[in-house]
């Protein structure tokens, strides 16, 4: 396994559902899609998956050595608002505007007008390269054009920066594994990131840290 730098070049801004995108979750997502095939689109709601597929990324204790997203240029956040309401030719009779096809909703998406998204990780170069090429878009609201990828580059770098770079945490790391830290809060730190079992008191990305 080699230290890697993965750079996604974007053609549209990235919509976010959290301040950062996790590289290991992206890889796990692609692996899961590969593993399940069509079954991926009809997963049960309560417990969608009972195990996370193996990812070609090195772990330190149970923390994947993969950074969160670094957006370039570091532009501020913006919002995209869209109000969908019924301006269709409505059918006769009673229709519900609270659910179903005619449901009204207000979309409020937070996005970053970034040109590049960079990640650091330690993993198998060939396999990571193969998997990232399967990613068509990053972030949320990809179905309406956010986060489209123009090209992706994977290259080997000298140092392992997936966990810490210049004494700064590059991802959430549980404080129980740390000697010193600047700021911490409860966050998910390993896939699946939606699971409450992945949540622990972690150091906040891009704050000072010292590994134990």
């Amino acid at each position, binding site marked *: 396994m080699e230290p890697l730098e993965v750079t996604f070049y974007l053609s549209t801004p990235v919509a976010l*559902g959290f301040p950062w995108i996790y590289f290991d979750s992206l890889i796990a997502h692609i692996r899961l899609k590969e593993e399940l095939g069509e079954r991926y689109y009809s997963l049960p709601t309560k417990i969608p998956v009972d195990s996370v597929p193996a990812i070609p990324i090195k772990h330190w204790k149970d923390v994947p050595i993969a950074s969160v997203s670094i957006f370039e240029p570091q532009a501020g956040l913006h919002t995209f*608002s869209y109000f969908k309401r019924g301006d269709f030719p409505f059918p006769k009779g009673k229709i519900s505007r609270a659910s179903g096809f005619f449901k009204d909703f207000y979309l*409020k998406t937070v996005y970053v007008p970034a040109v590049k998204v960079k990640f650091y990780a330690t993993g198998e170069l060939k396999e990571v390269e193969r998997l990232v090429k399967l990613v068509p878009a990053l972030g949320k609201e990809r179905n309406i054009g956010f986060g489209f990828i123009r090209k992706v580059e994977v290259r080997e770098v000298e140092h392992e920066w997936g966990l810490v770079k210049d004494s700064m945490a590059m991802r959430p790391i549980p404080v129980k594994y740390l000697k010193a830290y600047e*700021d911490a*809060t409860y966050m998910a730190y390993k896939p699946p990131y939606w699971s409450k079992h992945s949540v622990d008191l972690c150091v906040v990305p891009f704050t000072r840290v010292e590994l134990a």
Partner: protein
Amino acid sequence: MSDDWLGRWREYFLAWYDEGRVEEKALEVADFASRFLDEGQVSVSGGKDSMVMLHIIVTRCRSDIVVFHWDHGPWLMPRAVENEIRCNIATVASKAKVIVETYNYGSRPEARVVWRPWYKAFFSTLKRLGYKYHLLGIRAEESSRRRARGRVVGRRHWVEIHPIYNFTWRDVWAYIFKHNTPVPNIYYKYARLLGWNRVRLTTFFDLEMQRYGQPQVDSVLSWRWKHNPLDRTNSAL
């Protein structure tokens, strides 16, 4: 938050205070609301509208009023914001009798997903308190449904009064800046992104608000409270 952005908006809203005849509107609100205070309670969520209404009533009508505040519980309203709201209410209405009722289910994370018990708990509390009039900070401009409600709405067990019904979002912010009315700091963080006209204080990470896109914005701006509603650092701007 003391930067250029806020300073420029402060200037704008202070200019609007005279332009939009906010003082005249506030006097009219005080005159209208004073008729209902003997048998009524002023419901204060802690948001900008209810705080403006409370400030007008306390400074222009009388200060020995009854204030009702509903605490949604930690998983819907993070403690840092809730504490700030209670402090704001105490600052503005120091002589008022403040009734705080807590939503017990809000101490569980499920409260963000299951919202039906909320309605039962909230309305049964209002009924139990037994006041004839409930003064709310609802404005006509907020939605067509609220506009259609009117300024006085007769309910089964009480009458809803909307004193600041005719205020616009500019009037509300102008009043806040002019009179230094305290509002939660989180407003300024959200207003920077969403705009002064769209910013609202609602329950956090509440799936009931999903159709308004609110939980998604909360996940980016208030991410510290996603798993830990007791985090105190998030309110730092």
